[in-house]
């Protein structure tokens, strides 16, 4: 299990990186943390001729608030994002999802943008980005493209990042002050990719009415799965288990997850419904806790 030979590039500036990417196009790959790419290269499933290490480009490891959004740069590692107060306060769903990614040694190296660009449908962060309507900044030698999450994930392990391009940052909307979140998943073993999972962010009025609802499923389709019908079912209704069950039914009505050795189609569809309910109930329980704390 040894990777094929490649030429390693370590640009110091973004412009330099984009120039290398422009020169080699489809023969080049960006490496940030490498936690998904390196195993694929070791198995020779990914065999780039050129590898562009973006770790030394200054500024890419920044987390900042800009234009009312939380911006996470391409070299921000999972561990750094998790311990960042700005992330915890302005994007609580991102914060909640991060510990579910692999294990600590993986999170110490892997990057938020890397996970998103890798577009693994069983991963947590793409679902978070989809639920929160995150926006991606994709750059090439000629400029940048801004891509909304619903257009970014194209298919299994495929994001809208073309030859000669790289993700430079992801922007998350700032959560409402009363936002409550939950990440629910079932995996075969602790730390594995999920058989199915659900991320949810709700804001609930003091009287218990759901004001906003954003949720996405992962592990059940080729891309993160979101349902307008399910969210419509929630908004304006009281946060009760009946409402959550209705939302779960709506959310899973059209699901047809692929089967693999770890779970059948029927199992994943069923599990998705269970996890939607659990995510909503868990998020809502945090709202009650908040209310309790205020009272």
């Amino acid at each position, binding site marked *: *299990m*040894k*990777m*094929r*030979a*490649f*030429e*390693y590039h*370590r640009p110091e500036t973004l412009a330099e990186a984009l120039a290398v990417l422009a020169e080699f196009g489809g023969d080049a790959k960006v*490496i940030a943390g*490498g*936690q998904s790419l*390196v*195993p694929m290269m*070791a*198995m020779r499933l990914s065999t780039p*001729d050129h*590898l562009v*290490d973006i*770790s030394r480009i200054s500024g890419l490891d920044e987390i900042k608030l800009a234009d009312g959004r939380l911006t996470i740069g391409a070299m921000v590692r999972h*561990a750094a994002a998790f311990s960042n107060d700005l992330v915890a306060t302005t994007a609580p769903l991102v914060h909640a999802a991060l510990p579910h990614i*692999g*294990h*600590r*040694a*993986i999170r*110490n*190296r892997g990057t938020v943008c890397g996970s998103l660009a890798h577009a693994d449908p069983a991963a947590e962060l793409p679902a978070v980005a989809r639920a929160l309507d995150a926006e991606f900044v994709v750059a090439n030698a000629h400029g940048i493209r801004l891509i909304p999450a619903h257009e970014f994930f194209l298919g299994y392990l495929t994001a809208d990042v073309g030859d000669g391009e790289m993700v430079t940052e992801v922007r998350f909307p700032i959560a409402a002050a009363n936002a409550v979140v939950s990440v629910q998943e079932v995996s075969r*073993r*602790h*730390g594995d990719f999920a058989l199915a999972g659900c991320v949810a962010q709700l804001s609930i009025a003091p009287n218990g009415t759901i004001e906003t609802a954003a949720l996405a499923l992962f592990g059940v389709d080729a891309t993160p799965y979101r349902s307008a019908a399910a969210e419509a079912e929630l908004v304006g209704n009281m946060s009760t288990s009946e409402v959550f069950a209705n939302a779960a039914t709506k959310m899973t009505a059209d699901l047809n997850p692929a089967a693999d050795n770890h779970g059948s189609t029927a199992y994943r569809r069923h599990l998705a419904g269970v996890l939607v309910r659990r995510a909503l109930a868990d998020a809502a329980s945090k709202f009650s806790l908040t209310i309790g704390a205020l009272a």
Partner: protein
Amino acid sequence: MTAQMLSLSLTVNGLEHVLNVESRRTLAEVLREDLQLTGTHLGCEHGVCGACTVIIDGAAARSCLVLGAQCDGSHVETVESLAADGELHPIQRAMIDHHGFQCAFCSPGFLMSIKALADDDPDMSKEQIREELSGNLCRCTGYASILAGAEAAFDVISKRNKLNSIEETKNA
């Protein structure tokens, strides 16, 4: 694509090395093949088993998932660094006391994961230790002895740190 050779500067266990290595070598391969530090073991080479865990710039990482080239200028700690001047590290001592390992092929990864965790938070709870070590596979022990050793090591390190800080306060 022919092999590309790179010059690489790496501080391993406090010693600085300047190496000329093929760009496709992982850190694990650089440690094992170029520096003959064979204490770091390769169990799966795809980032699941954790046997190759080392500490890079203070953070635990899987050396099979990191290219040597990515570590240019970094400080790397391996299992060989734990015992200093013939004195075993408290983690090693605790593992011996608790019969932590059997074949011990996985031990370098466990030891370095525990070291990184204890450096970070020596007061971690039993449950947290168990969860944090779920990224390291052992096929021999069923984990009980490793967890017992880890808990004992955390205990020793936590107490030692507290004593040290009392000393420092006194001295100050």
